[in-house]
């Protein structure tokens, strides 16, 4: 037994030695959660989308701050209110050497919204397109029934696949690699579920070949194990460094930490619609009218929260206090919305004014396995509310139970997060704050059922405005209305962190993606 152990150990040492000799070419990345498929259109989920970006280029790319950049399309412009023309990049080849043309784009637009058994499709990004016209091999025109200013943004969310190999390919064909032929910077090598995804550089990439010959992604869901794998040198890069470990990793001379404010806002949704709400009663337990319908009460709940304390203590400094739906600088944000100042006296005065000077009893609900330190944040909020005279109980639960109940409107106040996949403010406004309308797809995640006609009108106008500057100004105005009315209570923006071994740099991304394309040897 012991000689076997020795041999195993010796083998491990030899292998580690070999690996360090070959580090210039191989990159090993530990992921916190693994993709459910290689098929880029099967499941609209961050881990899938980030792997997909390595293999399949989208028409339009997003940079680290989610600004749009040319991808397979070199330029795009509206010909009129209802028609967009995309000029495609010439001379791009698929990984099997075939040329890329407009026919591939048309094929992708047809397949992507309609993958069999997809648990979450890209239909919402594509359904507005009612006509596809191939003008020539490198020009394609897309028509819509109503003005659709977010066309390029929506087309940046999914990759283009090859018509000649993916004709009737199933999700299994992509996982096996036979259909996983893209134009991206990396070629697919293998996918062993639960264990690894291996990619190799595409030497003919149109934007220049990558410095890594081979990239290995390994899913390590336990965050402590992920940190240990980085410390022991088994991987070069890890994502989602736990906040408690960041200080220690920063001090370690063998490692560096990269971070970036993300597009994910953590907020409280509050039931501002129903006359009676399930988890609010008078302090003696008797039923009362829903106090959250009163804007003054909602504002009191917001300014009773010390956001700086949450950022400093609970999040260990790894977060940014929030006063709106996306961090300043993103498209459609307002410059006039700083985080609400902490003011418990005024909060109490507002409660008094609204007729709730004695407070009321409320249960705050939250998930405990979804966002960074989610249960701790909810606990801090509950304590801060009790300081302005409310009786607050806290109920946190796993996300598998939580989100179903939240969507069934079982809660009165709840902690949720929203990542704006499109990187601009219409995403949270449409989904979280617009008046709920099943058929128009508005307010789908509006679990407080906030409704404000002024904001809805501004949003409608913005969504029909093709000019970027004018649209962003309207979105900013809509945000200001929603925040003035306290349609929801923003708490903070998550900051994502990556741990890297020394000698590597990563440009942190607002969309929280971990991309080999962003990892570069330090100068």
């Amino acid at each position, binding site marked *: *037994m012991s000689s*076997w152990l020795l*041999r*195993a*150990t010796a*083998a*491990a*040492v030899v*292998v580690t030695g070999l690996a360090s000799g070959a580090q210039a070419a191989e990159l090993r990345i530990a992921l916190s959660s693994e993709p*459910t*498929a290689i098929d880029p259109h*099967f*499941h*609209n*989920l961050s881990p899938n989308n980030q792997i997909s970006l390595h293999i399949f280029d989208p028409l339009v790319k997003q940079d680290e701050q989610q600004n749009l950049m040319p991808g397979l399309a070199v330029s795009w412009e509206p010909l009129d209110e209802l028609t967009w023309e995309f000029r495609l990049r010439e001379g791009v080849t698929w990984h099997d050497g075939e040329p890329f043309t407009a026919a591939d784009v048309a094929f992708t637009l047809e397949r992507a919204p309609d993958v069999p*058994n*997809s*648990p*979450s*499709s890209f*239909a*919402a990004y594509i359904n507005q397109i009612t006509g596809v016209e191939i003008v020539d091999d490198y020009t394609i025109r897309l028509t819509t029934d109503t003005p659709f200013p977010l066309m390029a943004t929506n087309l940046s969310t999914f990759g283009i696949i090859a018509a000649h190999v993916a004709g009737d390919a199933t*999700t*299994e064909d992509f996982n096996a690699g036979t259909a996983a032929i893209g134009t991206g910077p990396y070629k697919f090598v293998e996918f062993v*579920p*639960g*264990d*690894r995804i291996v990619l190799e550089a595409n030497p003919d990439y149109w934007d220049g070949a990558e410095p890594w010959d081979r990239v290995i992604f*390994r*899913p*390590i*869901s*336990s965050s*402590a*194990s992920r940190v*240990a*794998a980085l*410390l*022991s*040198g*088994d991987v070069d890069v890890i994502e989602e460094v736990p906040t408690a470990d960041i200080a220690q990793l920063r001090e370690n001379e063998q490692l560096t930490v990269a971070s970036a404010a993300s597009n994910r806002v953590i907020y409280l949704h509050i039931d501002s619609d129903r006359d009676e709400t399930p988890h609010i009663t008078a302090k003696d337990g008797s039923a009362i009218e829903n106090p959250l319908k009163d804007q003054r009460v909602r504002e009191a709940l917001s300014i009773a929260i010390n956001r700086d304390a949450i950022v400093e203590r609970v999040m260990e400094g790894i977060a940014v206090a929030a006063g709106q739906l996306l961090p300043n600088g993103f498209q459609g944000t307002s410059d006039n919305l700083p985080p609400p100042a902490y003011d418990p006296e005024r909060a109490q005065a507002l409660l008094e004014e609204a007729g709730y000077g004695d407070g009321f009893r409320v249960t705050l609900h939250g998930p405990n*396995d979804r966002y960074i330190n989610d249960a701790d944040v909810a606990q801090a909020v509950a304590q801060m509310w009790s300081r302005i005279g409310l009786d607050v109980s806290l109920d946190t639960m*796993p*996300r*598998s*139970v939580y*989100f*179903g*109940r939240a*969507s069934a409107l079982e809660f009165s106040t709840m902690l949720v997060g*929203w*990542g704006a*996949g499109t990187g601009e403010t219409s995403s949270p406004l*449409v*989904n979280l704050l617009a008046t709920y309308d*099943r*058929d128009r*797809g508005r307010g*789908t*995640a509006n679990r407080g059922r906030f409704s404000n006609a002024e904001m809805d009108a501004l949003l409608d106008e913005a969504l029909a405005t093709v000019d970027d500057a004018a649209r962003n100004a309207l979105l900013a105005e809509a945000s200001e209305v929603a925040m003035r009315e306290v349609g929801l209570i923003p708490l903070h923006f998550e900051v994502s962190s990556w741990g890297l071994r020394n000698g590597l740099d990563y440009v942190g991304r607002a969309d929280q993606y971990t991309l080999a394309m962003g990892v570069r040897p330090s100068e």
Partner: protein
Amino acid sequence: MSVFIVRRLLQSLLVIVVMSLLVFAGVYAIGNPVEILVAPDATQLERERVIASFGLDRPLWEQYLRFVSGALQGDLGRSFVFNQPAISLILQRLPATMELALVAMAMAVGFGIPLGLWAGLRPDTIAGRTIMAGSILGFSLPNFWQGLMLIMLFAVILGWLPSTGRGPTGEIFGIETSLATHQGRAHLVLPALNLALFKMSLIIRLTRAGVRETVHLDYIKFARAKGLRTNRVIGVHLFKNIMIPVVTIIGLEFGSVIAFAVVTETIFAWPGMGKLIIDSINVLDRPVIVAYLLVIVLIFIFVNLVVDLLYSVLDPRVRLQEAKA
């Protein structure tokens, strides 16, 4: 013998039916998988399409009947998350879990029985006491903590072994296993040890207790008086008689090592079934959960059958017809 086996299989069938009903109702009660699977910005219409495509818009009894009729034709359903047959997902992960379980049990038995014998035969020596103290640590320290400490010590501080993951695999008798490569074996050591420590402690204590009890019995004294060598007294007369409880425990524990290596597989990022089931529970992937538990029940039934057959080999007084499941 064959009557015994047939009766066992009939009982198992009942267990499987009850279990599938419980799991079906249980997962239904927890929540709606679509809420977790679908992108948060999906429209209500998209949600309704997904719910319908999974058949979740039907009443629960109808969903169950569909599952049963599929299962009778060998189809346990497709994973909501992976869009692959649930059973093939599980069988894909089975070899990784089996090799981990086998190595862990080999470690537990290989170290546990000799150490237990030693502690039983020499209870008052320093070695005997150390073994017993160590075994208490072995099963009182939480599994996940042990795992993290093993990683810290052997991977981070000493750098002897890889921290996580399964190494490269090779073929032995046509089976893909990481036992075939040096690097693969190196990856196995820590997770197997983590899984083995608890079982090892249990086996040490059981063996020791058996030895302490048996060593004073008349037939052992008689064997000694007859002038048999110590090795033979211990190796045959004593050993065979303390093995019945040990074999029972090994059987039970082997089943649970296969089924519930969840903690170890999560900490060591081992691509086995335990990791699959915990991920599936997190997203309420019901076809995988049901299929997994069916497979586990079958494994338990098989292992217990083997244990019962082993009894009759170890102790001729045990007759299988009388053994109740």
